[in-house]
């Protein structure tokens, strides 16, 4: 164990800090989430030039070209969070499509798509889940039939975030209906302006439409818009699923959430006494604090392992399951300590923290379900982590 940074990394930390100090005026606010926000795009440009976005991606595609260094990435994340300044754009295009293209795309595809995606000029959505294909994603049925030099696509996707704003979609479709389900899928890229695409917002329990349904009717896509070969889509997609699981569950976010709850409990009162004086509330807070610390240190261990190029095994596999669950329970505590004030919603008078706790409580439940549900995570942990036997396959009639 050595929690000190070497001189090289201390210097790097100061460098990040001075950058943030010098550019504070140019940074958009943390709440600016608009994918078309000019201020965010201008900020993204500055981050790309200075190596704080797309840091390790090749320069020929608009990246910064730095050698991967997990510790430096962590220092950057820590300093941006401490400065309360937003990092680079983190859409599904940058987080999932770009790594996939780098691994599986043709030179042409890399050339055409990566740089504009990194700049925020090209916004992507992900067409994976379908009404009948959730945890069993490989059973997806949206069909793509080759007619001449075009695929003709028919079917429906669901849970498609940013579909209404996106320029492009990376989409899984069934091109080989007679092949076994995992071998009949292809991975296509196409414009959301293609005729035959209809996007319907999907209102969720939070009162917002965080997702959409996307309908395809005879959508014609040039046959060369495929990543990998026909029938290889499942393999191509799996590279990106790994990236998504790594993306969710941030231990430092949980720590700041915990600290906010402690502040509420010290500031707000019941019968004239601070909420913190209630031994039961306090006990719940401290119990969660221990879990937050455990996940924080687990995260530090992952950083070290990544830096040493060692596999983290179980320590990495549990992050999505534990992280999402912990965030949900933190929101639950915040609501409970606020009592009646905890149920205020939307633009109600007297609302606390702009209603973020109820929104988080509901949205986090969505995160527990999405990106590989808790039950799927437990299958992965038990089968890949603990080497337990798979569920016997049910033979098809």
């Amino acid at each position, binding site marked *: 164990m050595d929690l000190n940074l070497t001189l090289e990394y201390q210097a790097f930390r100061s460098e990040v800090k001075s950058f943030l100090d010098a550019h504070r005026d140019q940074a958009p606010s943390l709440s600016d989430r608009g994918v078309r926000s000019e201020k965010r795009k201008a900020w993204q440009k500055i981050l790309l030039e200075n190596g704080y976005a797309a840091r390790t991606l090749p320069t020929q595609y608009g990246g910064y070209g730095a050698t991967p260094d997990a510790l430096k990435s962590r220092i950057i994340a820590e300093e941006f969070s401490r400065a309360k300044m937003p990092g680079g754009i983190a859409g599904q295009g940058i987080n999932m499509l770009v790594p996939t293209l780098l691994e599986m795309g043709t030179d042409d595809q890399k050339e055409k798509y990566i740089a504009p995606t990194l700049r925020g000029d090209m916004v992507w959505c992900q067409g994976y889940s379908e009404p009948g294909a959730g945890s069993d994603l490989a059973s997806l049925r949206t069909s793509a039939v080759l007619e001449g030099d075009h695929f003709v696509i028919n079917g429906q996707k669901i849970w498609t975030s940013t579909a209404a704003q996106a320029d492009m979609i990376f989409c899984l479709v069934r091109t080989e209906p007679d092949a076994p389900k995992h071998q009949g899928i292809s991975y296509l890229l196409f414009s959301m302006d293609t005729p035959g695409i209809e996007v319907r917002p999907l209102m969720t329990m939070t009162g917002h439409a965080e997702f959409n349904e996307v309908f395809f009717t005879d959508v014609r896509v040039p046959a060369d818009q495929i990543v990998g070969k026909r029938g290889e889509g499942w393999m191509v997609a799996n590279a990106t699923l790994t990236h998504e699981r790594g993306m969710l569950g941030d231990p430092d976010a949980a720590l700041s959430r915990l600290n906010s709850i402690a502040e509420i409990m010290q500031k707000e009162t019941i019968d004239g006494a601070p909420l*913190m004086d209630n031994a039961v509330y306090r006990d719940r807070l*401290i119990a969660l604090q221990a879990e937050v610390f455990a996940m924080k240190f*687990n995260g*530090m261990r992952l*950083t070290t392992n990544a830096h040493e190029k060692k596999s983290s095994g*179980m320590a990495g596999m549990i992050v999505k399951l534990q992280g999402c669950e912990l965030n949900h329970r933190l929101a639950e505590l915040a609501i409970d300590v606020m009592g009646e004030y905890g149920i205020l919603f939307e633009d109600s008078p007297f609302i606390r923290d702009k209603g973020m706790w109820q929104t988080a409580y509901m949205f986090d439940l969505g995160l527990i379900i999405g990106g590989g549900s808790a039950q799927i995570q437990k299958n992965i*942990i038990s089968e890949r*982590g603990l080497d*337990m036997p798979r569920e016997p396959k049910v033979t098809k009639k």
Partner: protein
Amino acid sequence: MYFGLSEDQVMLQDTVRRFLDTESELDHVRGFANGDTTLAGKLHAGLMELGVPLVLIPEAQGGLGMGVLEAALIQEMLGRYVTPSAFTPAYGMAVAGLNTGANADQRNNWLGRIAGGEVILGVGVTEAVGAREDAGLTVTGDKVSGRASFVMGAETATHFLLGAGNALAIIDRSSDGVQETALTTIDKTRRVIMLDLDNVACDVLDGAAQPAIDAMINVGRVLLAADSFGAAEVMLQKAVDYSKDREQFNRPIGSFQAVKHMCADMAARLEPCRSLLWYAAYAQDNVPEEGPLMSCMVKSHISEVGKFIARTSTEVHGGMGFTDLMGLHYWFKRIGFNRQLLGGPEKTRHDAAVLQGFAK
């Protein structure tokens, strides 16, 4: 930054593992539990030969001069093998108390004799955590009187280091006025006693007693957590192994999601505890301002996760888990014992709240 174990630390743990693999087999543990008390002495002698118990004793007094992290790694192994050993009280807590609260002469005397194998300390600081039934000791001059409850390390102790109000005192176990009452607990792999003292001669430690008592409790909490962590790791592995072997409805029960998800839950809750334990142990020596808080965090959290794993693993084993045939209950009881000593989860969480100014 490097968050992980060094090669030396991994080697230390392997050395202890190899020793316990033969010397602390379940049959031996059973023997001790059923009254063959010679095993504790034999194991102790073997560990002394490896030098392991002297981990926290400074080199100047003949020890290894290592830290609480190394001690926790050793204790994790002892927990894995449900080893009858008084390592936590004798070489963790007592040495931490002497390092902090004794003057130079006392340190040379007691630590030197401990390193030489002539003295083995038990410890009694239960009342400094919370006094039940009005127990407690009082020092008058060089005599100590009263009751110390749940004194740890009775299996091997020649002397006891006892918290007495705001003093720390060492007594010889064979002194006049010492009355011992052996307690039977759920955990037959360790021995705790009540001590009733009537004007017993003692060596009162010369330094500030409260910081020394605190150091004993902090180190003790980390080590009890390490023990439960080791025991819980084994209970998880045993559940996984059993579920792959045991067949019902013509399938290994481990292929049923109901069983797999129980195991996944155990793994998901246990794995982050490893990092919490490493940090909490490391903090005792290297991040002193966080040491007390982290000892509360690790003790309370691993007690909760340990309890969950103890019951869930037993359930995965079905009826066999409930029998004595498998001996799974040794690990179950070890975790149950650790949970209550030096403050259960509610108590340690309260202490954590006080340390952060959240409670008085």
